[in-house]
């Protein structure tokens, strides 16, 4: 196993994922296999190779900084699990 339980627990926390107990063991196993698999990249000779930034070497297109969107807050909040008065509700953050 290239990854141990603690590492996987740490990655899950960084990724903000709660894994069920039965899921956890399987994840350790499969994630280890994936990491072992991608480890073969370490053998590739890449000295002096500039890492790819864009497949077509294109640069980011810019646009004028002006307002183009209309206010569609109500429309967009239709998909929110919990809103009140145009605000998104979350559990209490500050006591």
């Amino acid at each position, binding site marked *: 196993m290239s990854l141990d339980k603690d590492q996987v627990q740490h990655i899950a926390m960084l*990724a903000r994922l*709660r894994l069920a107990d039965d899921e956890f063991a399987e994840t350790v196993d499969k994630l280890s296999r994936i990491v072992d698999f*991608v480890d073969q990249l370490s053998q590739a000779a890449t000295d002096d190779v500039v*890492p790819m930034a864009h497949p077509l070497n*294109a640069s980011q297109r810019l646009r004028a900084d002006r307002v183009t969107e209309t206010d569609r807050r109500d429309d967009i909040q*239709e998909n929110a699990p919990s809103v009140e008065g145009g605000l998104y509700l979350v559990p209490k953050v500050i006591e």
Partner: protein
Amino acid sequence: MSQDLHTLTLTQLAAGLGNGDYSSVQLTEALLARIASLDKTLNAFVTVTADAALAAARRADESRAAGKGGVLNGLPVVHKDIFCTRGVLTTCGSRMLENFVAPYDATIVERLNAAGAVVLGKTNMDEFAMGSSNETSYFGPVRNPWDLERSPGGSSGGSAAAVAARFAPAATGTDTGGSIRQPAALTGTVGLKPTYGRVSRYGMIAFASSLDQAGVITRSTEDAALLLGVMAGLDERDSTSIDHPVPDYVDALSGPIDGLRVGVVRQHFDAGLDEKCAAAVREALAVLEARGAVLTEVDLPNLDLSVPTYYVVAPAECSSNLSRFDGIRFGHRADNPEDLLDLYCRSRGEGFGAEVKRRIMTGTYVLSAGYYDAYYLKAQQVRQLIADDFKKAFAEVDVIAGPTSPTPAFKLGDKTDDPITMYLNDIYTIGANLAGLPALSTPCGFVEGLPVGLHLVGPHFGEAALLRCSHHYEQETDWHTACPESYR
């Protein structure tokens, strides 16, 4: 008459509608009836938009009567459920978006609508397009119309199955590592992934932004050319969309392929490729040669590294793209969270399926402190080597031809235990995504009753040559017209 409409291609239907042989309403009703009776077994659709389709068909008929209407006026299409469709459920195959109704249309949806297309529904897919068998969908796997025990491939499995089963003449799809071309190969359809940036990604739910590209699945190359012409071109709303002229792809089909230099990759025929698939592909190459193409051997020495490179780059991008699903603004939210952290972790833990979680975690790992250089940076270096290999090859040839997939359609459940076995299924297709190249798959034969695909890759913006090559091939063969027995 109307009972046969499902057998016609987009181009044939355009002619029939134009001649007044039938109306778009008649056509739409015929296909909707077919979907209602046959999709229970295939599971190709997540949502069928029957009422909206009939309304759109009526509008198309009216505009035709008035002498108006775009190039797709009244023609039915289906969209992969990764494209946002205003007012319509857009799930991306995930529990996370089980109830998500898109507040806007993706650019390609908008463009097809503006051309008069009639959208029949949204197709099933691997969750967030992460999979090669359609088995990671929250809405259950799609079955292959050629053999119901088998997978149609993925991630655009629903789109491919819908086109193969004659539910619709054309479907949109997305391709991050082969997700249009592999299901096209496995279902005997034509699948086109354009150059990175050729088609707008606006409104296409992101998986790996430097690899994702929208395309189509059809039953002929001609139809793919027709659709690409409508979909392609600069979109101000996608900052990676490229400002490059859009040629008339249908017009370009008729040019000669005499002297077209077709590259055959030595490494493609190494171990791993099913022998009978190899034979079908070799036969297809001979057809192209007989038609005037010049076959040349080329090398892609880093081909083997394309899969591991992809499985660093794609998960890395996916882990950051999918961080938007926080259980707060849209998407699944866990019940009774203890605090904000619990809300995030449980909403995401419950909303995402196993494969998506693995990819997010792989991506999180390769981007995490202390591992970035060893994995992500290294992968982007190898990715450059792979792109350079293609560049060298395209100095000698116009098109690269080979197999799309190492085997024909595999059985559902066969590859779900080991992620690596599933990942290796995309060995021939992933390179085009890593290098941003256009590629397509067209049917080139059968192995034990299952379709096999011929894969063509071109240089950046080389779609016209690819389509022409594939179109010529289809003039000499009839594999692309074959229909699974129960869906004739």
